[in-house]
């Protein structure tokens, strides 16, 4: 092969690689977009705000970084964690939106949402959707084995589930609900600390406290956004 043809060939290979990378990025972005919009559907049904999804993704990202998870796993967790409650799409409105306390039977129906959500992703070959399946299925498991749906214990609970469990509870504690006021930052951190080794994996709690300053900035940032949004109404 002469020199000019070699350069021409090299340029064509480079362009093909560039196009391939671009196509891959576009597919990856479409997946992420689809996931955010899909997760939003579940939030709408639950009448909560989309901010919950962003907060979960942010808290999970910080914990995962502090725990030294791989860059790839951190990305999966960031994009798949907002899907944790996707199973609520299948829970009947009269239970999901019931303002007074649930009956024991209704509570049992509600507790099916992790399995229902996992079923949505069953059989997918996409690593991101596989992560979403694991997260949906295990985010209500508790480290001491008293969670649901499977009563998994300790490290038998996948790491993604253990991380989302803490992020989800922390956000629930610091958010206002029709039946309760929001806990303050320090109060919520104290509750998380007290649940270390029982509700939550102590390693996850340790990581959460390691990045406490960052968690506080996320908490503050989301409060600022919510304040801004309420002023816009």
């Amino acid at each position: 092969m002469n020199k000019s043809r070699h350069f021409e060939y090299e340029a064509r290979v480079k362009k093909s690689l560039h196009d391939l990378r671009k196509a891959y990025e576009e597919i990856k972005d479409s997946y992420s977009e689809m996931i955010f919009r899909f997760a939003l559907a579940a939030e709408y049904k639950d009448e909560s705000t989309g901010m919950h999804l962003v907060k979960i993704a942010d808290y999970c990202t910080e914990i995962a970084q502090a725990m030294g998870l791989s860059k790839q796993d951190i990305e999966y967790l960031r994009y798949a964690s907002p899907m944790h409650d996707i199973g609520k799409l299948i829970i009947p409105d009269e239970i999901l939106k019931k303002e007074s306390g649930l009956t024991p039977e209704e509570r049992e129906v509600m507790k099916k949402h992790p399995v229902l959500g996992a079923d949505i992703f069953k059989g997918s070959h996409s690593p991101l959707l596989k992560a979403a399946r694991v997260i949906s299925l295990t985010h209500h498991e508790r480290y001491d084995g008293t969670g649901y749906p499977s009563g998994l214990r300790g490290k038998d609970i996948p790491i993604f589930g253990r991380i989302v469990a803490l992020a989800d509870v922390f956000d629930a504690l610091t958010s206002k609900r029709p039946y309760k006021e929001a806990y303050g930052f320090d109060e919520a951190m104290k509750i998380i600390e007290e649940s270390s080794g029982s509700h939550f994996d102590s390693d996850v709690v340790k990581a959460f406290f390691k990045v406490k300053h960052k968690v506080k900035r996320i908490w503050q940032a989301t409060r600022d956004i919510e304040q801004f949004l309420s002023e816009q109404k």
Partner: protein
Amino acid sequence: MQVHSDKKHDVYICRIKGEINLDNVDKLAEVFKGAIDSKSRKVLLDLSGLDYIDSAGFASLIQFSKELKDIDGVLFLSGLTPKIRSLFAITKLEKAFKIYDTEGEALEDSCSY
């Protein structure tokens, strides 16, 4: 995150690439300060190269938008990819900003302000 600043007519343009997140919002605040110091009252953020924005990033955009408003300025956003647009949609911030498909459209509309 990479930021390339430019000026077209009376519009100060910042083209942002990469992620806006907790780890770099302070750097972004410096960029925004530069935009305000430039005396431009119209600022356009081109986000076509933006890969992700977290809650700290959104809070930073809101803060900047307020600061601009306080000095009778206007903030324009352009080039949001569908993924970034979906993040604006789920945070319900889509309606709080002036968002345009392209930098050109934003620049054209900026003339009416």
